[in-house]
């Protein structure tokens, strides 16, 4: 487990797939398909992961102990009980926060250089809204 700030920073930058999977798990525990849907929604369809990429990322995140499989199973009436749910661990939470801070620092520099002014204006300029 990364203890110091330096150890944590060594894990950065995260790949887009890893970052988005971790972001998808910030709110709630989810299964593979729900993670994929959340990533599509949050990136407005710009990142569409295949099963190989998604489960490869999940495997690496499990190995790095950034996520863990959830023991709780949802109500089988509401969902397929064979689905495996994943949730963020304390390490995962620290890493995703550190990566978000890194992005925030970059955004701050970009704003200082007046490449963008406000987030909304930026997305409009880039045609991402």
């Amino acid at each position, binding site marked *: 487990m990364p203890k110091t700030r330096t150890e944590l920073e060594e894990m950065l930058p995260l790949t887009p797939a890893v970052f988005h999977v971790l972001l998808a798990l910030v709110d709630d525990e989810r299964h593979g*398909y729900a993670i994929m849907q959340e990533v599509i929604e949050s990136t407005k369809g710009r990142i569409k992961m295949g099963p190989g990429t998604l489960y490869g990322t999940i*495997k690496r995140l499990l190995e790095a102990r950034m996520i863990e499989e959830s023991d709780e199973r949802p109500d089988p009436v509401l969902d397929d009980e064979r689905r495996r749910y994943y949730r963020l661990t304390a390490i995962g939470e620290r890493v995703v926060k550190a990566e978000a801070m890194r992005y925030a620092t970059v955004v701050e520099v970009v704003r200082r250089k007046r490449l963008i002014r406000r987030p909304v204006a930026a997305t409009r300029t880039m045609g991402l809204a």
Partner: protein
Amino acid sequence: MKHAHDEPNSKALALSAQIYRHLLACYPSEYRRAYGPAMEQLFRDQCRDAWRGGRRWGLIGLWLRVMPDLMKTSVLEHISNLKGRKAMKDRISAVLVRQSSPRRLFMAVFAAVFVLMVGTSTLITFLLPETYSSTSRVKIQQDATEANRLSNPPAVGAYDPYFLQTEFEVIKSEVILGKVVDDLNLTRAWGKKYGAGKPLTAAETIAILKARIDLRPVRNTMLIQIRIFSEEASEAAKLANAIARTYQEHRKNLPEIVDLARPGLRPVRPNKPLNITMGIMGGSVLALVVGGGTAGIAAWLRRRSNTTAAPPLPASS
């Protein structure tokens, strides 16, 4: 009402899931045991979404995204399966060097690329919607008034490219196609197929119909061939005949329908033998290039590792 084609449990979905299950064999066995069922389930969910989004085309799009993903991640998983904490470059070198010989490596890579290429092209060929065509033929002739409008008119009944081109445009005009659309109630029928159950507008229906028409003159004759493409053989024939009859009525029975369209027995698209042959040829070339390149790199790495590992030469006495 839900159309039968919109049902997600179609044969195409079952076939896709079955093929994907077999393709999971590309991953290392340990990885497959841990994540295979979940990946299969995720793929089935994606198939269902793709089918709802664009039916067969949606599925084809999904396969075109999933195949490169599968190829890339299966190679990565095999590499990461290797023990040790070497850098990625060293790991690849280790895999290539560890293979018994460049020739065996070439054969393995050639077979893998060839099977993937041929498999993908065959799969796409069988997932593509089938299209039938039907042709009706009409004999046209200029009447005397039309012929006299030109300063140097060709004799009545002679080949006149301007006249033929004009008639082609008349056949594709809203006057003719609009009447065909009305007579066959195509706005409603195609609304069920392409408009999620809602009737299409006349303009939309005419645009779809226009895209399905292929008009050609029969060489050295005054015959026009009206060829129509459709997913249903009977619909193609019905449309070709309706266009020919409407055109005949419009021209006050001057054109003569010499051949009525009959439903085609076999689909004209996709050309399965051609597509599979192209897949085999393309697969062979790509497999040769990739296999040759990999074997070349392996041979070079082997030479390099032998040179590095060789003991220093004894000093000559």
